């Protein structure tokens, strides 16, 4: 949450090797902004560059930061978020989501995609909302699941 009580959401991007991630992240930040929630994107340099190139005027993107910097700010109690969406398609994604569930007061949403989305979902043993769809190139299965959660997230504001 910001000083003026604006709701904020951290969007934590994973390795950008699965095509749907960038598209879904842009769709998510669009949806959050529509609801008056300020999105902050954290990711690797490559993941952030993909966002920058896809949104050159920063029409959807408001703020981007490095993964370690985001974790540093949260563990240092300098900043926290109301919502946290973690994109997951591998074991590292689970590790990052578990870390966020521990260090942040945000409501955590684990967005699982890729070939092994459902298997990975079974690995989650920490409190969060799981959104899983086998989506690699076509984002629609994950979009449909995310739309359900977005409505839910807004109603909980």
């Amino acid at each position, binding site marked *: 949450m910001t000083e003026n009580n604006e709701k904020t959401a951290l969007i934590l991007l994973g390795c950008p090797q699965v095509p749907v991630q960038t598209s879904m992240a842009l769709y998510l930040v669009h949806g959050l902004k529509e609801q008056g929630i300020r999105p902050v994107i954290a990711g690797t340099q490559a993941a952030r560059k993909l966002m920058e190139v896809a949104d050159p005027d920063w029409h959807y993107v408001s703020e981007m930061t490095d993964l370690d910097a985001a974790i540093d700010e*949260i563990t240092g109690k300098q900043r926290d978020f109301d919502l946290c969406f973690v994109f997951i398609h591998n074991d590292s994604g689970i590790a*990052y989501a578990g870390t966020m569930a521990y260090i942040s007061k945000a409501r955590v949403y684990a967005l699982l995609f890729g070939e092994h989305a459902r298997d990975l979902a079974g690995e989650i043993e920490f409190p969060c909302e799981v959104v899983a769809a086998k989506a690699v190139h076509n984002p629609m299965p994950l979009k449909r699941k995310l739309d359900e959660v977005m409505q839910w997230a807004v109603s909980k504001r």
Partner: protein
Amino acid sequence: MGCLEALKPEVILSQTTFKEAREYIRKNVREYHEVEPGYRIFDVHIIGVPPLYVGVEGEHLIFPYTKPCHGTFVVKVAGGEEIARLRARRK
């Protein structure tokens, strides 16, 4: 490995899972300490789901290091004053 490279790590396990990294440290390092997710060693955060362990072997630290694209590594670095800070957490 970003900031970790400056520590000149010895890579013990590469591209594994955070659970396998946890088990390796628990089974192979005599002295290990549980830390919370996000615990910082030098400029590196420990990432994963509890329990997470950091081992001490002589003057070195052994800990899991997670990269978004390449999984978790178990690395060994010179511990310096981080060893004393880690041990001081013991109750």
